[in-house]
């Protein structure tokens, strides 16, 4: 079997497993997995910029929030349906990532981190400033009756799970195809040695911009889906915390691996969920676990798997 066939087989197998789990899992884990799949989509988006292109952004919460508010505000004030609202959310993130990319990509390294952080803070503070419409930190509910696409009630647990699975599968396979394509190879080349890639004749800026836009748009799709599936939009999703989360999920799962973001999100979600039942200092323990993983599994969970077991893992 060729390397490409193995890669497709593995990822389609994971999607099939997630599909089957729908019928097996108890209600609690069923609900959790739906949420994890949406958050993992956010991490997949982040991974394209950070894991494959080497763009360490500290502001991806702005794209998630752009998707969420693009959906929620158009549904609330312009009477958009859930489907058009979802599209509006994705377009919002696309436009924002283009604007941020054009400006922020003039910088590199630490400066890029700071500029993306500042842009994200601007988005967060704008949400608070326009509190009359956004309801600021308090946020607002997207009513259950409005969360319907083509007659499918997305507040229903089964429908929610399938919607999250469709979103995750689409983004997972798109990112796999992207990385297998010459375009993805150029992104990896930029990550490994930007100067050499430039010297080889590639337009590094355009590739980085495209990478950031794909990353931001996928993150925005996750934000819009989160609002739609769980019925709430609030400024807390635009805070710096939600820029750090995808970084952690990707680092834990394995930066530069396609399924690393899913593995990292799953691991982190249950780590916090289980630890919080034992101690109120659960974030401290989560921090220690992260430090240990960074020390002893520097490439993250799936990065270590690639290094030790499945060397063809994309």
């Amino acid at each position, binding site marked *: 079997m060729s390397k490409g066939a193995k890669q497709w087989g593995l990822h389609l197998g994971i999607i099939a497993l997630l599909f089957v789990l729908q019928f097996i899992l108890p209600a609690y884990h069923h609900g*959790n997995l739906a949420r994890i799949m949406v958050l993992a989509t956010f991490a997949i988006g982040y991974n394209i910029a950070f894991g494959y292109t080497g763009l360490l952004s500290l502001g991806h919460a702005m794209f998630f929030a752009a998707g969420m508010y693009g959906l929620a505000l158009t549904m609330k004030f312009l009477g958009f349906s859930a489907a058009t609202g979802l599209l509006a959310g994705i377009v919002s993130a696309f436009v924002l990532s283009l604007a941020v990319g054009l400006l922020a990509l003039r910088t590199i390294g630490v400066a890029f981190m700071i500029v993306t952080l500042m842009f994200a803070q601007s988005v967060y503070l704008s949400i608070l400033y326009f*509190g009359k419409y956004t309801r600021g930190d*308090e946020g607002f509910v997207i009513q*259950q009756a409005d969360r319907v696409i083509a007659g499918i009630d997305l507040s229903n647990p089964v429908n929610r799970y399938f919607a999250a699975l469709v979103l995750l599968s689409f983004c997972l396979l798109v990112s796999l195809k992207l990385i297998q394509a010459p375009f993805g190879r150029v992104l990896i080349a930029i990550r490994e040695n930007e100067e050499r890639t430039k010297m080889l004749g590639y337009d590094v800026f355009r590739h980085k911009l495209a990478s950031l836009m794909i990353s931001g748009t996928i993150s925005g799709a996750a934000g819009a889906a989160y609002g739609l599936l769980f019925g*709430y939009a609030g*400024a*807390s999703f635009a805070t710096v915390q939600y820029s750090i989360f995808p970084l952690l999920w990707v680092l834990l799962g394995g930066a530069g691996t396609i399924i690393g973001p899913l593995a990292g999100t799953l691991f982190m979600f249950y780590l916090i*969920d289980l630890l*919080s039942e034992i101690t*109120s200092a659960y974030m401290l323990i989560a921090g220690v676990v992260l430090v240990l993983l960074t020390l002893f599994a520097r490439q993250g969970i799936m990065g270590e798997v690639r290094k030790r077991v499945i060397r063809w893992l994309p």
Partner: protein
Amino acid sequence: MTDNKQKTNLTTRRGALKKIAAGTGAIIGATSMPLLGRYSQAHSSEPIRIGFQVHRTGIGAAYGRWYDRTTMAVAKVINDAGGINGRPVEIITEDDGTDPKRGAEIVEKFATKHKCDVAYGTLFSHVVIGSAPRAGELKIPYFVVSEGHHVASGMLNRYTLQPGITDVKSQVQAMAPFVSANLGKKVAMIFPDFAFGHNHRDYFSEAIEKQGGKVVAKIAIPPTETSFTKYFPKIPRDTDVIYHVMVGPAVLTFVKEMGEFYGPNAPQIFGFIDSLEAVDLASPGLEFLEGTYFWEGNPRYAQKDQSEYDKFYRKAIGIDANGASISDSKDVSTYAHMFGCWETMFTIKDAMEASGYQSPKDRAKMIEAAEAITTMAASNEHPQGDKLFNGKTHQVFGKQYISKVNGQKLEVVHTTSIEDGFYPDETDYTKKPF
């Protein structure tokens, strides 16, 4: 290990007998009538499981600590008196980190993992609004103790109720006549620049104008602010009254810096005690507050005419006459808010008993029973005072207290009527489907 699953019922003779009876039932059921045995065991002796969503970490932690203590105390009182419908109450505690995303996850956890009968106890508005949609979808009654106007505004759903504490709109509306008549007509407002502060800004501005007053400055302070001196010069010189309400870890700094800015020449000062909840009024730097006024949801300091109900309530939680823990006088409670937990728990009990609640299939009946509640008389169950519950808006209305700082203590100088806080209904949840 924390008290994540604190079973507050102590081992008593009654409890032991119930367990023996349950065990016998289970054995009989297992050997002869398995389904019936399981049914009778589940309905007769299993505890009523109340999922307590607490702000143990995050910005709401100071409130959460005291909401926790109040909840454990009231659960013990209820269990000592025979529980709910003869069943003991079990409190299942989960920390939501004062975060709406985690809050929604916790509500899911209560409904699908812990199999709780109801969820309860959330304070911060954004956590309530983030969590309530999931409560509605999972059809689990969700009793919040939040003060937010979100319940009565009609934003939420049939399963979300606030029967233990009045909302901000009602509170500020009841304050305006006193401020206007006793302190002055020109008011400068200082409030946190997020939704809670905006509610104060909007509702108080409207209320004071109805009293012939005027808000001359609206000073919003960003939630991340740590130094406040640059904001005080924005207060107009002809201001009669400064109205302040702040929340979060920087409240003490805010109040101290206000004192340093004005010295002895301050205008009248009226604050919501939120600015100094869990803070000792005898803290150095707060001397300038002498003679100023505060709203209190429930008077922190035991008053001369303290009711027997308040005595009972303080003793049960372990609070002294100054509103601090009896084991540590520096550990000041969030007395103006936490009574809401106590009273909400008794409302849950009343609604369950009135509806003959046995299992989650009776949740709709329980909501209807809660909606049918109208009056709550001052009692050990309602130590803050008389209340009226509006079943249509799922919101309770009650008296508010205005206290003056006297000898570094708060002395109640005015108690509003319940009617002072009334406003027209903005929704009718009883017409919404279950």
